[in-house]
């Protein structure tokens, strides 16, 4: 076995992966420290075997209220406690506004939290704020505030819209500045005196809805002085 890459516990002769529950580490958005669990460090084969023997995940409980469920769902949820029916009775961790209580806890029991779980059985007034926060993070992934923060979909929509609009405007201006002057025959028609006579023609021909230009003298064919 390669040294220090994967610790695979052997349970009843079957190979099972160590739980797939994500281990949070570092600092959350609320600024709390979350205990770092499950760091893998390079070790030798002997130490690895010793660790496996010592820290073999316990077998699912044969007694108790949910013993039959634990045996069946071990490969799905690991050693996480089943705390309710959840959504449609499946043992999954789902965070949703309309289903606020997931079926399983978020984390598996780890050695550092065992004393806290015992303390939790007593009076909650004896728990400090940090202990309460740790217990919360043991059962849930996010606080309600973290769950309800918007994902910023509207901002993405605005970015896309403004990007498309600006591309169109840049393309239009490049066309006006560089493509239109390409044909020299049309350049004369864009001059002011030509445009003035053109406007007079439009009015005389009844071609367009135009009120005319108040500064153009249509009788003389020149700008008013």
């Amino acid at each position: 076995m390669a040294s220090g890459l994967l610790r695979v516990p052997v349970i009843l002769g079957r190979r099972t992966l160590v739980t797939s529950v994500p281990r949070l580490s570092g600092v959350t958005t609320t600024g709390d420290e979350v205990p770092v669990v499950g760091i893998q460090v390079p070790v030798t084969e002997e130490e690895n075997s010793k660790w496996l023997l010592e820290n073999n995940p316990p077998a699912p409980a044969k007694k108790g209220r949910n013993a039959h469920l634990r045996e069946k769902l071990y490969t799905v949820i690991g050693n996480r406690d089943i705390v309710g029916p959840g959504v449609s009775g499946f043992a999954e961790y789902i965070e949703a506004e309309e289903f606020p209580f997931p079926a399983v806890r978020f984390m598996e029991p780890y050695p550092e939290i065992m004393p806290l779980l015992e303390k939790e059985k007593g009076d909650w007034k004896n728990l400090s704020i940090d202990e309460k926060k740790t217990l919360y993070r043991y059962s849930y992934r996010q606080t309600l505030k973290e769950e309800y923060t918007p994902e910023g979909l509207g901002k993405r929509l605005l970015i896309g819209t403004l990007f498309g609009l600006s591309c169109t405007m840049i393309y239009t201006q490049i066309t006006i500045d560089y493509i239109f002057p390409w044909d020299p025959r049309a350049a004369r028609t864009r001059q002011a005196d030509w445009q003035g006579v053109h406007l007079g023609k439009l009015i005389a021909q009844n071609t367009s809805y135009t009120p005319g230009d108040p500064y153009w003298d249509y009788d003389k064919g020149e700008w008013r002085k």
Partner: protein
Amino acid sequence: MSQWGGTYYSMNFSMAASLSKFLYECIMTINCFVLTTVVCGLVMALSSGRVVGHCRKYLKNELLEAIWTIVPAFLIYLIASMSFYVLYMNGEHKEPTLFHSVITGHQWYWTYQYAMIDEMGKFFGFEHDSYALLNDVPSTSDDDTVLSKGDTYLLDVDAPFVIPQGMPGELLVTSDDVIHSWSVPALGITVDAVPGRLNRSPILASTVGVAYGHCRELCGVNHFMMPICVEIVTPATYLKFMKLEEIEE
């Protein structure tokens, strides 16, 4: 003719164009209603909290599904009924047709043939070509395709197509070489010019003036250089034009 920066319909010279404009306005009204409703619904669904937050309102909501099936069907029925009305009104031929014209598309100019029988039973007919005015400086001494001051580049022609105001007529459009399309939006007419085939279209201009258009079917390198200019004149002027008499300005 629309001006630079214009995004709306320009002046109409016939009932066909006015009906098309009316249809456009009705459909745009419905479109704005639908757009506003859908955008408001989307914003309401996505704005507060996570996306899954309001699933309870939208999952298995039979009333909502019924509304968004029935209302669009009703709107489509409205649009279809209006557009069928406009379609058949535009295709109606008013009898008797008092003037006939044959329009032939070439690469890259138009030929107009006029035919009329006056009250005495005498037949008048002639034809002329219509080329775009392209040059601002004459290339030869007898060059006719020169823009005068105030002309529109790629819209004005040397010999416009003349039709009378208020007289129902018919256009027979064909082509000499490749497929063209004779189109004047202000008259509400677009007729394909297919070689070997005569396409018939009714025409009834209600106002005196000048209407412009373009070829609408890609017909070669100079497809953009075959504009259409229609001069709508009074019946008396049209009669003088057909008899090739002098017309007072």
